């Protein structure tokens, strides 16, 4: 039948969870994406930050990896012996909030915070446990806090970013989004461990798929604000939802800066023909 979906590739063994900084865990697993006749992998990651008294999730993954994420959460909570109190989400899209409902049901003391504009309609019955949060607000985990941060790069207007104040890990949601190639065995790695990833090209491809707006704006102010924010916050590690984490934010920033600038060069209409008509 015409327009049938291509058969999914066999995926490698899941390399997650991985502790990307002390007490900060990367959860989820790679998802295949078909792009211009090739298979790429993309992450719709979740993260967990474990404090002395409480644990927090940042993002919850796409629904199709919900069972994986929930099993990883259960295991880490059991090992660390702290309860899940906070579920932070950068914005209310399904690839960021896919397990919010199941986590709220499973952990009745937990509340969700972030850009949650339509989550009450997705998960009816949890309205009193789903809350907006504002830049500058902090949530105490014991020995570390989660700071709500402005979103420099976003799709939804009130998207939020988050910072782990102890290890200076920034969770920028849709910022720093890029895929990796199916055959290159880069799943579960830091960006610095995956030299074959062509980060600027992959960021541009991701923008073509998901950040159409970047083709119409002057991207330079966003790059400048990003640089300033990294200095203001003292960012050490970056944990993007849709890319490999960045272990050395300061020294790796030039290649990502190039990637952001390339996003404004997309000629979306031409590229869409490739993407949409596989």
């Amino acid at each position, binding site marked *: 039948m015409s327009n049938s979906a291509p058969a999914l590739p066999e995926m490698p063994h899941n390399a997650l969870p991985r502790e990307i900084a002390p007490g900060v865990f990367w959860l989820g697993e790679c998802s295949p994406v078909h792009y211009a006749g090739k298979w790429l992998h993309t992450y719709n990651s979740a993260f967990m930050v474990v404090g002395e008294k409480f644990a927090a999730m940042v993002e919850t993954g796409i629904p199709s990896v919900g069972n994986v994420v929930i099993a990883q959460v259960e295991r880490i909570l059991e090992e660390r012996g702290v309860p899940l109190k906070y579920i932070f989400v950068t914005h209310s899209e399904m690839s960021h909030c896919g*397990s919010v*409902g199941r986590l709220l049901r499973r952990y009745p003391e937990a509340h969700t915070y972030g850009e949650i504009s339509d989550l009450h*309609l997705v998960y009816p019955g949890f309205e009193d446990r789903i809350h907006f949060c504002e*830049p500058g607000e902090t949530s105490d985990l014991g020995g570390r806090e989660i700071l709500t941060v*402005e979103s420099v790069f976003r799709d939804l*207007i009130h998207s939020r970013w988050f910072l782990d104040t102890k290890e200076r890990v920034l969770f920028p949601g849709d910022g720093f989004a890029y895929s990796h190639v199916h055959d290159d065995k880069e799943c579960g790695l830091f960006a610095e461990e995956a030299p074959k990833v062509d980060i600027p090209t992959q960021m541009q491809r991701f923008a073509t798929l998901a950040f*159409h707006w970047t083709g*119409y704006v002057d991207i330079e102010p966003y790059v400048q604000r990003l640089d300033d924010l990294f200095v203001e916050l003292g960012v050490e590690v970056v944990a993007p939802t849709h890319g490999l984490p960045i272990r050395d934010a300061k020294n790796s920033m030039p290649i990502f800066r190039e990637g952001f600038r390339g996003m404004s060069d997309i000629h979306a209409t031409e590229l869409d023909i490739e993407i949409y008509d*596989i």
Partner: protein
Amino acid sequence: MNTFALVEGEHVLVYSTGYSAHREALLAHLRKIVGQRTVSVAIPRPEWASMCNARAIADEFHKNFDQQFVVHQRLINPPHLLLDFDADSVGASSVLAGCQLRMLSSTTRTLVDPNGERGLDFIVPELRLLPTNWAYDSATKTLFTGDAFCWVWKDEETGPWLVDAPETDPTTLERVAHSLSAGRYWWLEGAATQSIRVAIARLFENYEVRFIAPDHGAVIAGEAVSRHVGYLDEYLRLAARNPSIGIEAGQWKTSKMRASA
């Protein structure tokens, strides 16, 4: 929040499936329409507003659910896993587990009834935030516009939810501007909008549109179509002259925005 049922012969294509909160009302509507007809589902954009009730529809009408499941390319994950996110889920849908994905295409017409001739033309709109398709139904001259043209809201639940003549239409250019710039289309302020204006003008030249059917708000009908296309074009023209709000919007407090909405 709108879901549309396209009925052709002995088949119903449910176009976009709405939010979970509206599930019971939606299923009640569909039970009246479906009867003995077969049912298929189209998810034109991989977002909650389009996805939430796809599983419920498949499970409800499992005896006559068409196994061709029409989806956007970004929904390539197996639908029984991707659509298994309810808080009280007891496992993936066996109905969806047997489905074959049929991808939306802007070059191949998608049939409303797999055994019929009525087709939907899927369009990649120049005005979009996330991966999105619009669709044109030539049988009714309806353009389904997803998250665009969502600016007609009413103070009363009773509507009317179809606007035509100016006296039934509360829309002003200011309302259109606020809806776009304070929502998903914040990035249009200060943006290079000319190519979007051209693409939309060309779209409405190429298709005779009697109804604009967005995911949110009233359906725009008849003489209101050209009026609302005009609002959009005028906003896009003016927005290009404005300064960007892209950096400052990231710092805005939602409480302030909600109060001014």
